[in-house]
């Protein structure tokens, strides 16, 4: 357990918590960006450079920006009124469920911690191999993802497009 790992884990968790807890939506968005960055660094820690950079490119470069845009377009940036909090009426139940889930998962992890592999030899994987895998063994998923992205782009555009009749 490297020292680096703990720092990054703390950063990520902190970012996640902030994202969930903060009042101002934009702060949440920025916090989640921090969490994304932390995750990307964790990936690098796991010798998964490609995945890490892809994570940065996609999440910080695109998703975070999208979220921010959405927030500004839905006037979410103003801090909400005091009388209704940022949490829904049923927040307690939600919290309980989440806690239960975490309990179960961690229980599972600790249960099976003994059986987990100990070896720490970093696998040497070049981008070339990844590319060949993408184009060879995983070409079908790749094509499907490409289709999915196209469909999603078009769909998002159509969904978010202004209907001509209701010009509010």
């Amino acid at each position, binding site marked *: 357990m490297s020292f680096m790992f703990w720092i990054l884990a703390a950063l990520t968790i902190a970012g996640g918590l902030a994202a969930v807890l903060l009042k101002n939506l934009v702060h949440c968005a920025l916090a989640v960006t921090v969490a994304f960055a932390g995750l990307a660094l964790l990936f690098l820690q796991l010798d998964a450079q490609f995945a890490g950079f892809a994570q940065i490119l996609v999440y910080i470069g695109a998703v975070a920006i999208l979220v921010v845009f959405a927030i500004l377009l839905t006037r979410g940036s103003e801090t909400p009124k005091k009388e209704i909090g940022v949490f829904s009426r*049923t927040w307690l*139940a*939600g919290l309980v*469920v989440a806690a*239960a*889930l975490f309990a*179960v*998962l961690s229980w*599972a992890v600790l249960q099976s911690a003994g059986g987990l592999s100990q070896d720490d030899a970093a696998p040497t994987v070049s981008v070339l191999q990844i590319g060949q895998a993408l184009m060879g063994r995983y070409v079908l998923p790749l094509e499907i993802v490409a289709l999915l992205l196209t469909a999603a782009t078009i769909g998002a555009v159509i969904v978010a497009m202004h209907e001509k009749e209701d010009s509010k």
Partner: protein
Amino acid sequence: MLMQEMASVPFAPTTHCGPAGICDSLWLIPALPIVASGVIALMKQPQRKAAAALSIGSLAISLLLALVAFGHVVSGWTHGAAVRETVNFTWIQVGSAHVDLGWVLDPLAAVMLVMVCFVGLLIFIYSTGYMAHDENFTRFFCFLSLFAGAMLGVVIANSLLLLFMCWELVGLTSYLLIGFWYQKPSAAAAAKKAFLTTRVGDVFFLLGMVWLFAQTGTLLFYNGGAGSMEALKLGGLLATPSGLGLTAAGAIGLLIFAGAAGKSGQLPLHVWLPDAMEGPTPVSALIHAATMVAAGVYLIARVYPLMQAGALVGGTTAALTVVTWVGAATALFAALIAVAQNDIKRILAYSTVSQLGYMMAGLGMGGVAVGMFHLITHAFFKALLFMGAGSVIHGCHEEQDIRKMGGLRGAMPTTFATYAIGMLALSGFPLLFSGFWSKDGILEAAQHWSVGKAPFYMLVFGALLTAFYMTRQVSYVFFGKWRGHGQAHESPKVMTTPLAILAFFAIALGAIGTPAWPWFRAFLEGHAAEFGFAGFNEPGLLALMVTSSVVVLLGLGLGWWIYGNKSPQVETPDALERAVPPVWTVLQNKFYVDELYGVTVIAFYAWWAKVADWLDRRVWGGVVALVAWLFRGGAQLSRLSDEYWVNGGFDKGCEELSNSGGLLARVQSGKVQTYLRLLALAVVVLAAILIWSSRG
């Protein structure tokens, strides 16, 4: 063997065509006019020229094809081989039984094809002039083309079924064309009458066909030895007896003959033909003189092997005997009636009937060649006469009563000349005219008939009458002085030209049937035709020729003596009427046949209809009412049960359902997070279970 093959491959035509292959495309001949009629049906009324051009063009192409086919057959014949080529295919297949259709090309069909196409074409052309001022011009040509197609279909059919289809189609078009001027009640009535009367015959025809199929399992005429007109099957038919001491062959033949009689207006089904003259004159010429009525004769010729099956050499069969007697009787009977008619077209109609009788008699006694030869010649000169009559009517402003005409000799010379030729041909003026030779053939056959001499005398008397009434008509129409109103005028070229052409053939056709050179007979019977006067050496032939000439001349003279050049007024009674009033009235009223039918058949039907109506109202109506009442009672019962038992339970169930639904609906709150929560909860539980089960 062929049957098996065809059963295995339906729609695979088994053709016995020669290398020429014309009979492969023989179907085009009827198809073209039918298609043309279909196209014309889609045309708008003003497009007269297009319609006429289309139908005439299609028929012209058909004529060309027919001529090619004819040439093919002739060439085959001159090379000493009797041509009979067929194309058959399976139409319907039910299990092992299958119904085949097909067409045949043999001398009979070839001759008939050429005749129908040729006469039809001339009449089409004539019609363009005659119908020029009718507003339903396009409709007329549509029907006309359809008729031509159907008729040609009858001609080439190699299957009794296909023939029957086209036969009915012909009947339909004849109905449509007779009733063409449907606004005239008389025309509508005539159309109905024609349709129903021929139907009577067709029922028998259908019966005969079904029986034939039941007996032989095929309706094909010729099928490489397996056809119903070929020795194999005929033997089978002869072997199976039927009632009244007839063989199956004879019985079937009689049934089919009934159909033919209906179509060809033989006794006792002739009544529709004179009334059919209500149609436009070209129709009368085409359908009720040249082609359709001949279809009956053609049918008999087509099934002739069946008719004469089992006949000894020179002997005859029951079927043929019946044919003969009916034919002879019709010939005489119709001729008698014709004497006392005043409507120019009716006279011709009755003469047609009587001539058809001659043909039938010829078939019955002398065989296919004799009957068919008269058919061909008659087609030409009768078409000529009808069209001449049409031209006369046209010229006299739609006047049809011969007593209101007269002296047209000067007014319309062309018509007169051609009409005179036709009249002489019909009455069989010696040596020159085709009618003489064809009728002579029939008389000769009658003279040598093995059963009896009566038909011979009847036919001779008929010939005399024919000459007589034709003379009467001509002298009424063309001689004497003008008794009509307005001024008569000659018809346009488009009408007179066909007349001239037909007139030429009315004379020329005689050449191919003289005893000196019996080309036609030889052609039909498929043996070589040799030229020479040996033909005249047959015993009694010359005497017969002399007799018939004398008879004809006698008729002509008698007619001229009584009617020639006198121009009696309309109101003055006819010469014969003054001589023998009762006979005259009987003839005038066509032997009261219509009235007879009126008081017998029709009255019976009317009574039967009343009975049926009464049954319908009282008996069946009562039953229906009873059933309805019962059901109403049942309905009452079920309603009660519904209200008191079913509804109770059902309502209860619905209540329960809605309650439980309400409970479930609590969950369906529409709050996304609730769903997500439940989902997560489920995941937790599942994961817990999994781990619990997997540990240890």
